[in-house]
């Protein structure tokens, strides 16, 4: 079975991720997931491709810490985080986060917390390739 936290070039299957998540417990009542995708349009410009770069060893360590913290903080039964680092086109998958809990409130809260924290804490950068050229994305404060 694949690791619950991964950085990879390849796309992922939600069915496989959910099956792996569910394998650990039959006490899960709710699984909340977040799937981040590449948009064809950002800040008023067409976007052809998005290219990702990561500080791999640190990013993976942070993502593992983040998962452990979420499990503890929201009493999750399990959680998974997968981030692609490659060049994607509009509509392609970028990041997948899943949080499983006995009840839905904790699953939603845990899932949302993980994607919010990931954006703050995990050393990954994206560059948008537009008809006007390439530019690194500067996150809003």
């Amino acid at each position, binding site marked *: 079975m694949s690791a619950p936290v991964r950085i990879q070039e390849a796309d992922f299957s939600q069915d496989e991720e959910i099956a792996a998540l569910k394998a650990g417990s039959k006490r899960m009542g709710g699984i909340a997931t977040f799937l981040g995708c590449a948009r064809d349009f950002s800040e008023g410009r067409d976007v052809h491709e998005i290219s990702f770069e990561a500080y791999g060893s640190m*990013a993976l360590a942070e993502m593992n810490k983040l998962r452990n913290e979420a499990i503890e903080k929201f009493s999750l039964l399990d959680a998974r985080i997968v981030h692609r680092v490659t060049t994607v086109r509009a509509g392609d998958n970028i*990041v997948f986060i899943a949080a499983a809990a006995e009840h839905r409130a904790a699953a939603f809260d845990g899932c949302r917390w993980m994607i919010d924290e*990931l*954006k703050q*804490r995990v*050393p990954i*950068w*994206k560059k948008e390739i537009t008809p006007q050229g390439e530019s*690194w*994305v500067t996150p809003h404060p």
Partner: protein
Amino acid sequence: MIKVLFFGPIADRVESREMQLEFTPGMTLHDVVSHLGMQYPGAFGLVSFIAVNQTQVHDKQTLLHDGDEIAFMAKFSGG
């Protein structure tokens, strides 16, 4: 030796992803930052986070050790 890593927009401005600096005993993070910051002021204006051995460090007086890995990072934009 100290291994220095640059990523994303910072790597673009430094025009390099990695360099090695001679280690000298007593060397601090501040020494590295001021040395490289003078050489690449445009790049260092983008630095929001610094990690030593994959852990964020806020104190520039942090003592370095031979073989340390320092990363200079712009604001993250993953996810």
